[in-house]
């Protein structure tokens, strides 16, 4: 479930990035890298779990599934927070800088 949630997030971000490419003002590419990297790593985890559990891997208990989904959503939220921090620090549109400068001007 965690893998599935992150894969969907990666696909959504890639489509969003493609719609805006080659411009990447919102740094959506960062989200693509984060979610695809995590998807690939969780895929390996899933393969190892499948090798251990066999077909039972595909029939998890509802409580386990819910916890995995909760984890997936939390992971996506963390990815979005990381992206937001990178976006505000790099400030490609200069919006943060402009706002700070404007406020300083007003204070004067």
């Amino acid at each position, binding site marked *: 479930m*965690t893998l599935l949630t*992150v894969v969907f997030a990666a696909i959504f971000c890639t489509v969003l990035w493609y719609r805006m490419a080659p411009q990447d003002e919102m740094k959506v590419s*960062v989200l693509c*890298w*984060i*979610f*695809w*990297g*995590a*998807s*690939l*790593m*969780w*895929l*390996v*985890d899933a*393969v*190892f779990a499948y090798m251990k559990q066999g077909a039972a891997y595909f029939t998890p208990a509802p409580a386990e599934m819910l916890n995995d989904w909760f*984890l997936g959503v*939390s*992971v996506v939220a*963390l*990815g979005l927070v*990381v992206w937001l921090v990178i976006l505000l620090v790099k400030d490609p549109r200069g919006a943060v800088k402009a706002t700070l400068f404007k406020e300083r001007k007003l204070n004067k």
Partner: protein
Amino acid sequence: MACMIIPGTEAIITTILAKAVASREEKERKMEAFQGKDGDTVSGITEIPFSRKLRWLSNLLWGGSALLAFEHVWHGEIVPWFPFLTAVGNPADTAAMLHEMATSGIAMSALVTAVWAVMLVMVSVVERRTLKGQAIHK
């Protein structure tokens, strides 16, 4: 248990490598500009620098390792106090952790690197076609 340590270590190495390659490329570019050469430039389209390609790999590795680290915190395998990994507490868990690092950790690094290598092959095909097309039009 701590499988993300392997891709995390690879991420650190590739980041350092990308920075070193970028600074070497910058020096070469300055030298070429000084000598009046335009390198592989054809009508303004240049080859993608290797440092940028290396950054793709490090981005994948950093992103994946960070989210996986969060998963380990979620499952109580990583804690914010020394020695940070709960498996280090007893020898049986430590052995299981090392086994996981040697199997799934290395497999994660290998898969991400393999996907990146496939990306490089595809990009180089597109790059070659574009540069060739531009040269013909010139």
